């Protein structure tokens, strides 16, 4: 792979901001969608910016991910693209969610240039909100070591922390003297660098090497994580214990970038049954929990969206009772996605498994017929 070496004097966040400013001033982009500090300075939110002065408030790598970028981009482009060209700066899992959403026709990428950044993970929202100043320091630490215990559980074992399906990638890892790599991946990415006469034919193997090494380390960690989680949640007893504090509030679904339905099936009237039904079910089992259908909600949601789960961890951030919900989803997602050899968000080309099929596949899920079954039985 080849890329540009982007010289950094002091603060990389600042210099990238300056570069972004230039793209606006020179009218290469008509607007930039990027996380910014909120007025009270206690969190971040995505701002779509045209006034280049406001880019000062932006942050390339904020310590938290309050709203998943995929959801943000959906809100911005679901009803169509704006005329201007827009740069979007996001973390890798946000980029992947955006790409999934574009395949599901919820995001229009036509005028959008996706710019990703090597990601050291994010601090869980509640930890950060408890003390934003401390949260920022914790994040700085995570950024330095790249192996922090204070980031989201899924971030600790994420091996898709770098270039995924974006147009341009900002490589932070493996550079000397704090320089960055600008790695163009698509026509859109190359156009941007060409416009500013940035040479992207440099050798970036130092980035590639360290990324590879980190990926391998994380894959080992992920394996351990899977094994521990499996023991914790596998089987009816464990699973129901895991979900027993669930309020059935459906907030996990609402913040999930992939769950894009305006009205979720599990919030719809389809599950508003006549009162006799609930009383009957209470009689059958002795009692039923209210609100009902907790497990159905989780398994049903999985069956709808799990092939596209990008393991971002947003659901867990938003759960009022801090269930390990994203860990469970990510754990299941890995197995299901392997069935189809599918990694969500890696490319706009491979179709989402639930909207396509192959004739010769998944034979192991058919139950073959034994012609003589009833005869043997006699």
């Amino acid at each position, binding site marked *: 792979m080849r890329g540009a070496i982007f010289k950094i004097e002091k603060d990389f966040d600042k210099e990238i901001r300056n570069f972004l400013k230039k793209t606006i001033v020179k009218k290469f982009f*008509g607007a930039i*969608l990027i996380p910014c500090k*909120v*007025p*009270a300075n*206690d*969190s971040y*939110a*995505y*701002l*779509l*910016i*045209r*006034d280049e002065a*406001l880019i000062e408030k932006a942050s390339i790598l904020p310590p938290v991910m*309050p*709203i998943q970028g995929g959801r943000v981009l959906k*809100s*911005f482009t679901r*009803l*169509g693209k*704006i*005329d*201007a060209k827009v740069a979007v700066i996001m973390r890798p899992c946000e980029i992947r969610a955006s790409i999934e959403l574009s395949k599901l026709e919820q995001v229009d990428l036509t005028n959008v240039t996706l710019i990703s950044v090597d990601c050291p993970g994010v601090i869980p*929202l*509640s930890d950060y*909100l408890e003390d934003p100043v401390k949260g920022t320091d914790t994040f700085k630490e995570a950024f330095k070591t790249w192996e922090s215990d204070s980031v989201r559980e899924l971030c600790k074992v994420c091996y898709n922390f770098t270039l995924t399906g974006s147009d341009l990638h900002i490589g932070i890892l493996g550079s000397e003297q704090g320089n960055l790599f600008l790695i163009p991946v698509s026509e859109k990415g190359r156009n941007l660098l060409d416009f500013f006469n940035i040479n992207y034919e440099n050798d970036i193997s130092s980035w590639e090497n360290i990324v590879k090494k980190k990926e391998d380390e994380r894959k080992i960690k992920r394996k351990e994580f899977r094994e521990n989680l499996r023991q914790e949640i596998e089987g009816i007893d464990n699973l129901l*214990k895991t979900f*027993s*504090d669930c*309020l*059935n*509030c*459906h*907030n996990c679904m*609402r*913040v999930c970038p992939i769950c894009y339905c*305006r*009205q979720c099936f599990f*919030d*719809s*009237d389809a599950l508003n*049954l*006549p*009162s*006799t039904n*609930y*009383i009957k079910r*209470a*009689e059958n089992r*002795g*009692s*039923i*929990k*209210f*609100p009902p259908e907790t497990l159905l909600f989780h398994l049903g949601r999985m069956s709808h969206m799990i092939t596209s789960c990008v393991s971002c961890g947003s659901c867990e951030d*938003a759960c*009022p*009772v*801090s269930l390990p919900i994203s860990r469970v989803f990510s754990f299941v997602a890995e197995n299901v996605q392997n069935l189809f050899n599918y990694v969500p968000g890696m490319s706009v080309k491979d179709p989402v498994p639930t909207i396509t099929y192959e004739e010769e596949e998944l034979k192991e899920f058919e139950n073959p017929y034994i012609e003589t079954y009833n005869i043997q039985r006699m």
Partner: protein
Amino acid sequence: MSKTLYIDENVNDGIKKFLRCILENGKVKGVLTLINEGEKIAYSLISNPELIKYTVPLYPIMPLNAARSLSHITLSEPISEPIAVVIKPCEIRAFIELVKRSQGSVENIFFISFTCGGVYPIKMNVNGKINEKIDNFWRLIEKNEIDADLRASCKVCKEFIPYNTDMTIFLAGNKEINNQCRIFLNTDRAEDFAESTDGNIVQDKINTELIDELKVKRLEERKKLFEDKKIEKLGLEGLIDIFGRCISCHACGNACPICYCSLCYFDSQESEYKPVDYESELEKRGAIRVPPNTVTYQVGRLIHVGISCVGCGCCEDVCPSEIQLSTIFIKGSESIQEKFNYIPGKNPEELIPISTFDIKEFPEVET
């Protein structure tokens, strides 16, 4: 003077004895109350009397406002055979408000509630943590004190005596909960049920001294809370500061018992920005927050639910951004409700003020 059922147990065991009795003798088909199994507490509709021993009807926990569940069960048809529910005063009030909006029916529901000492934030119930706090909770009830760890909304709640109940258990304001279970019988149905159990029914005079004292304490807390948070002087800047960290998940509305719409206006296409809207905001202001309408949602929701907000605090409890929502909603709705002299859920016959009008009212809003 009112009819009172005395059960020879402490208040917790007494109510359980009663519930088991009416389930066994067939007065009700089921009981909706909190159940504590394997250290986890949740609402359950119980039909097997054997399970009553696991219940904790008076526990200071509200996983989600039970009015939502009652509406869920009774939305498409009323309940056909009687069930008893043991829920908190604000849950009943919220349900009455929902019924006024045709979102459920009280038919065949036997309401049991209690003078409420408040509930803890839901986070305190994760992994059964509440079980560690519970003894202290009963002790504070006996002392008639307010636990500082209660939900913010409960510490300032002035409607902790239930309306529209068949039975009211004497909990808060009762120093004797450890050796008596005293239940006020408010309806004929309640007397009938009480007679079918083996407690003593007597004519009794309620001593409201302690209740009045508690009310005064709560009102003081209320005043202090609003002052501390400077709710009245927030203004737009203040709101932007508070809601800047809001993640627009709308969990607050979805947990709110009054927000019953199956599709919220603020989630509908109506309030979605089109490309031209983004374009014009960019031109006008140079930038726009995405998704938009963060403060609009909050103010809009307050306008929609303010008249009926029961101050339960569920919105705040589920907010992942830990925004002090209930304080804002309680203050905001108090001022709306005072204008109409309306206490939500108090009188089922009274129309919701926004669904009616008086020709001569509010000359002051006309210009």
